[in-house]
């Protein structure tokens, strides 16, 4: 296999795995629900995106054609991540989930 492609695949895989892990660490470690919401919507989405791109490069260098499913998966994840985050934030505001003490401002009543 082309060494450049191999290098790019390895790099993207490691970056993707690292971002997914960091998103999960954020989910486990941050103090309240609204701060936890940030990890999955950004870090995890980008992590999976990087893994998907490495899959595209891998299969296209193997000569199995350029994957369209991969692009659909990425596009779908990037379109749905903000929507589900927004729905969850609304649900949390409705249930009056506790926020950490150093939060400035306050959520609206639902």
């Amino acid at each position, binding site marked *: *296999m082309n060494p450049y492609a*191999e*290098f790019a*695949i*390895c790099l993207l*895989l*490691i970056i*993707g*795995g*690292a971002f*997914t*892990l960091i*998103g*999960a*660490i954020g*989910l*486990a470690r941050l103090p309240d*629900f609204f701060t*936890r*919401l940030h*990890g*999955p919507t950004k870090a*995890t*989405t980008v*992590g*999976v995106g990087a*893994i*998907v791109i*490495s*899959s595209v490069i*891998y*299969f296209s260098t*193997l000569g*199995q054609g350029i*994957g369209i*499913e*991969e692009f*659909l*998966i990425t596009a*779908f*994840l990037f379109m*749905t991540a903000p*929507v*589900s985050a927004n*729905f*969850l934030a*609304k*649900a*949390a505001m*409705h*249930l009056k*989930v*506790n926020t950490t003490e150093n939060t400035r401002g306050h959520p609206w009543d*639902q």
Partner: protein
Amino acid sequence: MIVIALYITIAMVTVAALLNVYRLIKGPDAPDRVLALDTLYINAIALIILLGLTLGTRMYLEAALLIAVMGFVGTVAMAKYLKRGSVIE
């Protein structure tokens, strides 16, 4: 080289999934659990793609696409249920 990178990545994503399960069990509120499930399905997509890379087949991508679609619908339904008390009004 790719094999080593693959194994490292699979290990990282597995640890990430375990952390999500920790949040899923610990809670403390219902939205936290739904958020953990949401992250868990995204991690499942990553694991399936990595499995496909390890086995050198593209067959698993269909499954990943289906999980992406169904997981989103599930998250939205659960969030709507938490907010309104019913999914379809």
